[in-house]
């Protein structure tokens, strides 16, 4: 893999040349150096790696991505972000352009006392000590080239800190815009979300971009869920079909915490999402709720790992893929129940709908159970639209194309209905329908 080797050397050289940009506390500088060394040792994965069997990285590695050009207008104006809002939903909004905070596009709504929502770079400058305990501690770069790269290179991202018992009613919307000026651009957003004991919050990460700009977003989000907190997290992938996107989310859950991670993936040429959650103490629950809907030549990969490291925790995973055109997709779910994690309840379901003969999906559900008193199940299906159902709708006067759209929409509804915030649900409905040729017509009568 000469391409992979060349690309690796380029990134390593880039680290050496621009290290001063990434100053910061000494503990972080040390971690960054370890991360780039680890990346140098690991290199980019190839299809010989089990986890990369179905993903060819060559298109990503062939592009000479450069850090963003700073200064001067970047073309990102508030109007361009309008389509990424959620109708009437009021949110605090932090916007990051190519991984750097854009105050002119951001606004804070009134927040409960003690809640801090800020640029991570700013916190690193002003109060780095408050980050040392958690930042880079959960997304492990030791085994993952992309996390290693992010750790070595990140400059900014969102910092969300909700103190004990605080309840943030309005969602916090984090918008990550990828844009390039004349040259392919890489960005490394880095987010840290901390919820104190008994607190509640809803955080939405939207990834946005516009064709034909070629961008590469390598994002990492670390979530520290304190005892008995409640977190609803959304990740909505809406970059352009010329964008590359690799994102890792690491969730660390304390006793009785409840976390829901929705992942809704629409955009991107090559998208790869990792979600790793771990139960640190008993009584926690997590729901992973995913929808991926590639078409054309898109590839959309979803790897999840739920680590039941403590007893009496519940995980519920529901992922659906809808694949059209010549698109490809991967669902790979791993539920790991450790020896002492008795009374674990884990359920995993992945269903896939192929809308064309050339679409391809690989579904690998997985359960690894070392405890003996558990309730675990997994299921996986890949299929086409049910022709009996198509005929049923047509026999009532609905034309064939609309019948297929309605059934496709219905297939997604299982996942969409898990979304509790109505304006987000409505937005997702629109996004799903907009991906179908005559979806608008179907939507009108909804």
């Amino acid at each position, binding site marked *: 893999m000469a391409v992979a080797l060349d690309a690796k050397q380029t990134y390593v050289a880039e680290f050496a040349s621009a290290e001063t940009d990434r100053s910061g506390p000494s503990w972080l500088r040390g971690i960054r150096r370890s991360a780039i060394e680890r990346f140098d040792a690991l290199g980019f994965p190839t299809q010989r790696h089990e986890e990369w069997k179905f993903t060819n990285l060559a298109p990503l590695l062939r592009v000479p991505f450069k850090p963003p050009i700073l200064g001067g207008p970047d073309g990102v104006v508030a109007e361009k972000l309008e389509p990424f809002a959620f109708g009437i939903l009021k949110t605090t909004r932090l916007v990051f352009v190519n991984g750097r905070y854009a105050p002119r596009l951001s606004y804070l709504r009134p927040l409960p006392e003690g809640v801090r929502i800020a640029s991570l770079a700013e916190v690193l400058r002003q109060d780095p000590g408050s980050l040392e305990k958690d930042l880079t501690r959960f997304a492990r770069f030791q085994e993952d080239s992309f996390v290693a790269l992010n750790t070595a290179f990140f400059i900014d991202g969102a910092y969300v800190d909700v103190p004990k018992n605080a309840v943030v009613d309005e969602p916090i919307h984090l918008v990550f815009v990828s844009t390039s000026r004349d040259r392919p651009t890489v960005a490394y957003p880095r987010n840290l979300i901390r919820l104190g004991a008994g607190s509640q919050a809803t955080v939405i990460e939207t990834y946005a971009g516009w064709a034909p700009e070629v961008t590469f977003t390598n994002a990492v989000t670390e979530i520290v869920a304190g005892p008995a907190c409640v977190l609803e997290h959304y990740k909505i992938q809406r970059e352009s079909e010329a964008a590359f996107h690799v994102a890792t989310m690491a969730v660390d859950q304390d006793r009785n915490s409840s976390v829901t991670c929705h992942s809704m993936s629409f955009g991107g040429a090559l998208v790869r999402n990792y979600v790793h959650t771990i139960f640190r103490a008993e009584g926690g629950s997590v729901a992973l709720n995913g929808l991926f809907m590639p078409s054309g030549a898109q590839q959309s990969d979803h790897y999840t790992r739920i680590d039941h490291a403590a007893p009496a925790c519940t995980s519920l995973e529901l992922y659906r893929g809808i694949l059209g055109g010549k698109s490809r997709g991967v669902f790979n779910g791993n539920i790991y129940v450790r020896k002492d994690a008795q009374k674990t309840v884990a359920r995993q379901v992945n269903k896939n709908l192929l809308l064309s003969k050339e679409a391809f999906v690989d579904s690998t559900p997985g359960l690894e159970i070392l405890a003996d008193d558990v309730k675990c199940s997994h299921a996986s299906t890949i299929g086409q639209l049910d022709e009996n159902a198509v005929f049923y709708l047509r026999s*009532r*006067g609905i034309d*064939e194309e609309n019948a297929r759209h309605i*059934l496709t929409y219905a297939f997604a*509804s*299982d996942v969409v209905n898990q979304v509790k915030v109505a304006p987000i649900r409505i937005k997702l409905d629109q996004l799903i329908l907009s991906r179908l040729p005559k979806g608008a017509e179907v939507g009108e*009568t909804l």
Partner: protein
Amino acid sequence: MLEIKNLHVKVAGKEILKGIDLSIGPGEVHAVMGPNGSGKTTLAQVLAGRLTYEVTGGTARFEGKDLLAMKPEDRAREGVFMAFQYPVEIPGVSNAYFLKAALNAIRKYRGLEEIDAMDFMSLVQDKAKLLGLDETFMKRGLNEGFSGGEKKKNEVFQMAVLEPKFCILDETDSGLDIDALRLVANGVNTMRSPKRSMLVVTHYQRLLDYVIPEFVHVLVDGRIVKSGDADLARNLEKHGYGWIVEEAPRPQPARA
């Protein structure tokens, strides 16, 4: 209204209908009865437009138009409706959404405006009452988790809302208890009119105790071997199909 001539149909390469002739006038209710495997459901499905059925000969004209050349959705828009023997469950599409989409597709084809949301609701409520369906059912997924009886009621309910000219009831009585059967039959009878015709396909007599047909045809091995009035159905109930099968003319090789 419907004129079927010498209809031959193959399913998976095997000839199931071997020359059906049937003429149904406006306002008439015809029953087609027959033993299992005689081709009753094939006849119903081929009229509704099931694509896996291959018509190898003959014609079916609906109000003078070539029914067999039409797409299933166009048949529905022209006024043909089939109540399915096995209605499909579609979670994620509510009964209300589905029915409104169907009604509007039909109205659009006929050059009518889309139905107003309020008018739709009151129409639906009236018809639901007729079949003893409660209000929550409109919000549920289409046939999702419905019992056999509820599914059949839903078929007749849809028929009542869409007001077709020609109704095909495919084994609508199967799986119904006596109370549900009465409700369904009542729903069907309410729809009888001098302008609306029906083809009731059934194995048993019991639905015909309530929905009394003008004509009864007995289908055996892909052919109509006997036709008569409602008494024929009662005879079949009493004596079974055996005597008719023996009386039936010897099968002739099918013309391609």
